């Protein structure tokens, strides 16, 4: 069995009386793209915030790259990159300034940060707009910058929380290709999305979460074969069957 890069054991988090994350356990292998799916309010973002040491869990154990998030949060922070669900950018700064700043916060020196920033902007097709102010960017460009910042400092584990919401197919494809390229270079990726077909294409394994718990975890193909022929049903069918059709939140 491949090396497990991220191990989560029985993670809990409540807000007031509401159990946002209620006993979540899973493991991600090194170099794997792992999908975390679930309806609105399932607890995906809360899980990612705990794994990225921003939010303290009520209980549970998380080990990333051999470091416990409780005992060695600093070590964990130095090997992770986070692309938050909401845009987290300085709108009044240029794309380059944003990237260099976060690169330096991730421990790069000025020169490295600059070089990496240009490299990632190239990857995202944003080199011409490097010095443009982010506030003047389109939604898709902001999304790509949001993702590019997460890559600064070359993390070994990447948390991508719905990196493709609200963007056109071109931008989305650009992001898919980027993500695949990262995996090919050995990066481990935790990916959340509401686009089932996206998860199907990208992820080696997916976990479906609902009401703070993981209700199933397997490869897309295995999940589909549970309800029919894998070539005829979609992951969305599986998702709706498992999580029901009632509205959330």
């Amino acid at each position, binding site marked *: 069995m491949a090396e497990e890069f991220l191990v989560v054991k029985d993670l809990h988090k409540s807000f007031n009386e509401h159990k946002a994350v209620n006993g979540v356990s899973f493991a991600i292998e090194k170099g794997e793209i792992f999908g975390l799916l679930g309806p609105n309010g399932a607890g995906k973002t809360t899980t990612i*915030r705990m794994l*990225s*040491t*921003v*939010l303290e869990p009520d209980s549970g154990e998380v080990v990333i790259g051999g470091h416990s998030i409780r005992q060695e949060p*600093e070590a964990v*922070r*130095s090997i*992770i990159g*986070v692309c*938050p669900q*909401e*845009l*987290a*950018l*300085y*709108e*009044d*700064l240029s794309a380059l*300034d944003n990237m260099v*700043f*976060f690169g*330096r*916060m*991730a*421990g790069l020196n000025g020169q490295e940060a600059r070089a990496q920033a240009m490299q990632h902007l190239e990857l995202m097709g944003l080199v011409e707009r490097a010095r443009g*102010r982010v506030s003047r960017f389109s939604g898709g460009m902001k999304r790509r910058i949001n993702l590019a*910042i997460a890559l600064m*400092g070359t993390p070994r584990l990447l948390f991508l929380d719905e990196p493709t919401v609200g963007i056109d197919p071109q931008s989305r494809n650009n992001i898919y290709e980027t993500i695949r390229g990262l995996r090919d270079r050995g990066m481990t990726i935790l990916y959340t999305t509401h686009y089932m077909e996206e998860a199907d294409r990208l992820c080696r394994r997916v976990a479906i979460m609902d009401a703070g718990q993981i209700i199933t975890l397997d490869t897309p193909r295995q999940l589909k074969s549970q309800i029919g022929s894998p070539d005829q049903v979609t992951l969305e069918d599986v998702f709706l069957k498992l999580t029901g059709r009632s509205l959330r939140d």
Partner: protein
Amino acid sequence: MLQLTHIWLIAVKDLKIFVRDRAAVFFFIVFPFIFIIMFNFLLSGIGGEDERLELHLVTREPAGGLSHQIIGAMTKAEESQLAPGQPKMVRDKDYAEARRAVEAEEMPGFIAFPADFTEKLSTGSGTRLEVVANAGNTNYRAALSGVAGAIAAEVGADRVIVEASIALMVRGGVIPPDEASINQAVRSIMDRLMAGGAGGEESAFIDFATQKVGEVEAENPANFVIPGYLVMFVFFAAAVAAEAIVRERQNRTLERLLATSVRRESILGGVFTGTVIRGLVQIVIFWTLGILAFRVDLGLAPAAVFILSFLMVIMSAAFSVMLATLARTQRSAGSLAVITALVLAPLGGCWWPSFLYPQWLQDIAKITPHAWANDGFNKVMVFGADFSAAVPDMLALAVFAAIFGFIAVWRFRTSAV
């Protein structure tokens, strides 16, 4: 070392964002000077009289009281020995006559020692100087209050206490009334005073109250206007910056920072440093323009003026960071900032001299850092006091800064993003 780099980078990032915000820059630098230029224009018709100020002193005590000695000591100087701008002290004989002269506007005002001055002092129960002045003559009243304050603060602790004790000892026959024994007693009492650290408590012995006669008519010298607006705008600009810090939390960049190797303390330190740098730029501009364009006089202790300005910047930045950790939304941070800045500025004497306020209001004003800063600036720049007179004000500003900073750190440590 790495943490210092982080602090610096965060500060630089904030400054970059700041200079791109034209409205903020305008509000921060141009706006204060519109105020000051306006006041300078209003003032340009007034002033120009270079006569030596005469300050009148009266005592209601019977002859032989300590106040007679104090007045004697203060009025002794010959006019020719006075430094330029230094007021001449004049002794008036009769309280009722002096008061009548003020009411008839024949004399601008005077300081009066009460009838029980010596008695109250020697029993340690505290006494009170009375400043009677024409309300219209702001400068004169300011000057009298300054002198009364100086008597209370400086003469109060040392000479008055010592002389009171000596007078009592002589009267009670403890020491013979010859010069040698008195001098020796003075020295031994002084020694004991110093050792006991009584110096810090002088204000408990004498304080003073200002009384107004007639209508008030505003009239502000640039030496008052510039520091007043400096205090107000340095604080205002810093407080408003709290909004930017809350924005950092709201647009999730704070969360992003927390997932990197940057420590929470460094984030706070970076934000604080950025605000301090902006404040320093502000005071440099204020004083450069103040000296070159408005010819302000920094008095005998320019160092005190600069230290007070610096502490004002530190205190304001600490307040800003505290506000940011207390406010939940950008809007609440913004309105809280504007409200506190606009309430504290006049209360703390930024708009008109707080030494003209009734005593109770002056007491309340002491809860504002502005009052201390203005008090320090006024002492040095308006009343010609020396460095040591402003030290309590510096300490007060430092204490405010420490309290605000402490709350900020504590809130930021424990608060979720």
